[in-house]
């Protein structure tokens, strides 16, 4: 079944490469949600994510002749998506509220956060993710949300596996440093 799907997508890609817009629309239908999710995880804004997803597919259409079937199309699209998302963020200047630093995430003082709701907690995590450097955030998103192996991340972002490991370690360490005090607090509240 999987093989049939792969063959089918390869044929659709070939048609799209020869200029078939309907075939390309089929590819958009298949990968739209994945691309949107990845961009959203990178930029944290649904409107930017949708615009960036559109931009991703337009760029993909323009560069489809350079796509090589050795790389899964999904990975190729994600790579374009990361760049499109970052470009969009810089252009729109709608990057998260300046409040990332203002949140004082590393401050472990018990306060209102002890009453933090689930929603606030996810916002906190989201902001901590967005405060990561772009390159480390990309690796983290692909690992945590797309469940990619190190090898796949390496191929998608065109970086060595060793760099994938170091960026992932770095991203997780930063997140832990920022979130751990709050987490301990939150966990204690639940007990």
């Amino acid at each position, binding site marked *: 079944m999987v093989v049939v799907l792969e063959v089918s997508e390869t044929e659709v890609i070939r048609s799209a*490469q*020869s*200029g078939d*817009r309907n075939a*390309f*629309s*089929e590819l*958009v*239908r298949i990968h*739209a*949600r994945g691309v*949107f*999710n990845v961009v*959203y*995880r990178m930029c944290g804004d*649904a409107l930017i*994510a*949708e615009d960036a997803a*559109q931009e991703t*597919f*337009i*760029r993909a*259409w*323009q*560069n*489809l*002749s*350079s796509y*090589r079937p050795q*790389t899964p199309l999904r990975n190729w699209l994600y*790579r*374009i998506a990361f*760049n499109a998302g*970052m470009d969009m963020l810089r252009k729109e200047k709608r990057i998260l509220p300046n409040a990332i630093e203002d949140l004082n995430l590393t401050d472990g003082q018990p306060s209102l956060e002890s009453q933090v709701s*689930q929603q606030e*907690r*996810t916002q906190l*995590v989201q902001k901590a*993710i967005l405060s990561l450097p*772009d*390159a480390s955030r*990309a690796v*983290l998103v692909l*690992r*945590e*949300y797309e469940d990619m*192996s*190190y090898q796949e991340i390496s191929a998608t*972002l*065109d*970086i060595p596996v060793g760099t994938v*490991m170091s960026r*992932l*370690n770095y991203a*997780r360490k930063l*997140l*832990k440093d920022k*979130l751990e005090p709050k*987490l301990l607090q939150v*966990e204690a509240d639940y007990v």
Partner: protein
Amino acid sequence: MSNHVTEWLNAYYDGELKGKRIQQVEEHLAACEVCQHELDALQSLSGMLQEVPVPEFPSPERFATQVNLLLPQKRTTTPGTHLFEIGWWMIPVGLLAVWVFISTASLLGDAMSTAKNLGLLDSTTASFISAPSETVVVTSTLGQFGMLQGNSLQWAERTENFTRDSFPQIVLQVSVALLYLTWFAVWWTRHTRQISEPLLES
């Protein structure tokens, strides 16, 4: 300095460790509370990350229609670019042909010179090959006027022979090699960069 396995914990947690390293990490984890705590923290972090929801995505069909309307009318693939691709791949073939021609001509010239020196060629064939001694015009002229003598004369003759016979071939071959390397560098850049935009900054 400790023997903690902190640097391998992420890879262990992600199932990316192989071979003896897994056993090494597991043995350490069984005996080390610090590393076990680190591993638990990784699990908690992962759990928290999964809690962050993704907003609802508009219907993929509608999205695909919107994208279709935004697509440029013509993609970059045209008959012109197809011809360019063919021409592009003819460059290394042409360079290879030139290199083979130069090498063959050089080899044949050397072989015929050797054959002539050994007396293996008749006079008719030999007349097509110019003897080195006959080509050193400048050196012999200078020698006649006494401007070059002894070792200097021999050295000058050799230099002039080299300049006249071998140097142009070397220059040609180096030029062909440089052109090929340039083509290869451009090809490699195009090949590795599937889309013409920079990657995420480090």
